[in-house]
């Protein structure tokens, strides 16, 4: 195990930021700490880095306890949300900083530093910016320079705080993929904090879902998506339709072919687990209210009349061609079939 957190707790005044966090992160993983804002994910990252100290609990990096070690001794690379590049230094000097502050015995000479910095600049594909100052760079470039600077000291663990948070959408997409590839290349255990579940799914090999200072679930993206441990995870990851048995939904849920479960009375249904057919009989209750083109998928918004005459909105998603083949449009009646649901209490 590369990173082990043992019973980490942290209070800020009356506010419990983290409550008894236990976490094992295997060597070489790219882990997303995912959760809504205020869930404690950044605090947890800063505790791993040593920028913040836990009230209770222990931190182990590569098998060594580092709980009481200051950040500079922990051999971590930290990439700050707003990059925190040294604004009075060139890009080159920024990356060289970690090498130049090493104690004399370990410090490489200037030729070696030069070679290493250019190697890192090539790694982040920005060698041509060596002489620029941070203020002359775009957000995406700053991000990559910050990463190169963190990598210069060959950290055993790389920690990234909302690495894509301050970037615009198109740059973010490119950088996500780039980070994933870079991680494949370097294979250094990395943790990044994000509130964006799509980003976590796309980049991470492991996701840790945090909520209100607790770990809700840890697992691979497909694990978490296909087998959410609880209602919070199911709602937070991807889109979900939520129906409660015992309320007005019971009747039509049974008609939709959904097997009633032994336990649980709240059904979480992924939009792609809802099948539609053009209604042939008058019994069908659902009306196609609207549909949106999401690219490869079509999202259909349905209104389903319940027994009391109110309406439930549900979303279904299907590939483009399938939607075309159904030949349905706004206002049509449709029959709803639910293939699969997760049941929670």
């Amino acid at each position: 195990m590369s990173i082990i957190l043992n019973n980490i707790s942290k209070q800020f005044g009356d506010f419990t930021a983290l409550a008894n966090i236990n976490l094992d992160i295997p060597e070489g993983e790219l882990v997303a700490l995912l959760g809504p804002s205020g869930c404690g994910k950044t605090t947890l990252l800063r505790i791993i880095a040593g920028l913040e100290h836990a009230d209770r609990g222990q931190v182990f990096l590569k098998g060594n306890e580092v709980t009481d070690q200051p950040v500079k001794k922990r051999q971590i690379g930290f990439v700050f949300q707003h990059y925190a590049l040294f604004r009075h230094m060139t890009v080159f000097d920024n990356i060289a900083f970690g090498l130049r502050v090493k104690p004399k015995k370990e410090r490489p000479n200037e030729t070696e530093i030069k070679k290493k910095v250019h190697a890192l600049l090539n790694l982040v594909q920005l060698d041509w910016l060596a002489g620029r100052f941070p203020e002359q760079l775009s957000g995406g470039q700053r991000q990559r320079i910050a990463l190169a600077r963190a990598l210069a000291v060959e950290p055993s663990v790389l920690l990234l705080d909302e690495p894509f948070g301050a970037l615009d959408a198109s740059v973010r997409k490119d950088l996500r993929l780039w980070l994933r590839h870079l991680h494949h290349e370097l294979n250094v255990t990395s943790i990044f904090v994000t509130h964006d579940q799509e980003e976590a799914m796309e980049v991470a090999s492991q996701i840790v879902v945090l909520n209100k200072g607790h770990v809700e679930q840890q697992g691979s993206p497909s694990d978490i998506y296909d087998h959410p441990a609880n209602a919070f995870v199911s709602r937070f990851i991807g889109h979900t339709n939520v129906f409660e048995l015992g309320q007005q939904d019971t009747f039509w849920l049974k008609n939709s072919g959904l097997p009633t479960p032994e336990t649980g009375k709240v059904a979480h249904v992924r939009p792609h687990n809802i099948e539609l057919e053009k209604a042939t009989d008058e019994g069908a209750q659902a009306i196609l209210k609207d549909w949106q083109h999401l690219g490869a998928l079509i999202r259909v918004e349905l209104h389903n009349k319940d027994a009391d005459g109110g309406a439930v909105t549900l979303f279904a998603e299907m590939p483009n061609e399938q939607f075309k083949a159904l030949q349905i449009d706004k206002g049509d009646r449709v029959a709803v079939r639910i293939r699969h649901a997760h049941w929670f209490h």
Partner: protein
Amino acid sequence: MPQSHIMPGFRPAISFTLVYLSLIVLIPLSAMLLKTFQLSWDEFWAILTNARVIASFRVTFVSALSAAAVAGIFGFIIAWTLVRYPFPGKRLLDALIDLPFALPTAVAGIVLATIYQPNGVIGKLVLAVFGVQIAYKPLGIVFAMIFIGLPFVVRTIEPVLQEFDTAMEEAAASLGANRLQTFIKVILPNILPATLTGFALAFARAVGEYGSVIFIAGNMPYISEIVPLLIITKLEQYDYAGATAIGLVMLILSFILLLLINLLQGWLRRRNGQL
């Protein structure tokens, strides 16, 4: 086609600025220049090369530069304390910093002289422990100049320190730098331009200071006589041309020094990519 500006009111604004500068700065200064021209070159040169005048210039500029340097360092520490650490009574201390701005300089001078003179509260102590007399010696001048210059330094550094992104310090620490390295390589370069501005302001104020200095200086010709005092002395002897001649040279010297400080600042900013 007339030039158009995004901000309206360019004409009235520039007119006001020019009129103001003329009335308050340029016309009085030209009057001084004209008055000096009443002297022949030889007379002018004779006044300036007078040993007592040269001594007073040395006293003034050496004292002002040392006082500004000390105020620069102390001011930095005070600003750092005020910005970085929470402590009880912080607001009160913050308000005290500005006091030298408001205090009549003569009052400040008398108070400083009383305390730092050989039988004064602190003067006695310093004399006993270090064997150094402060008041009525050139050192007293420096003390008075530090007193009046310090607020300038604190007030110019404070906002820059407040804006300083502390994540840069965390980044330095995460890269393995210790506190000293972080301070020298990361914090100082970002605060240095503001410190230089504070230094320049404290220096300019110290060079022209009269009220507080004369009470503590002792005013011994050749030793602790400052240029402003010499000017007053000349005025009292109705030697107006002589007084303006000294004033003019003082103005030119100060201007050159401030210009140099500005150039140094510009160079620092360019080197740090902040232009």
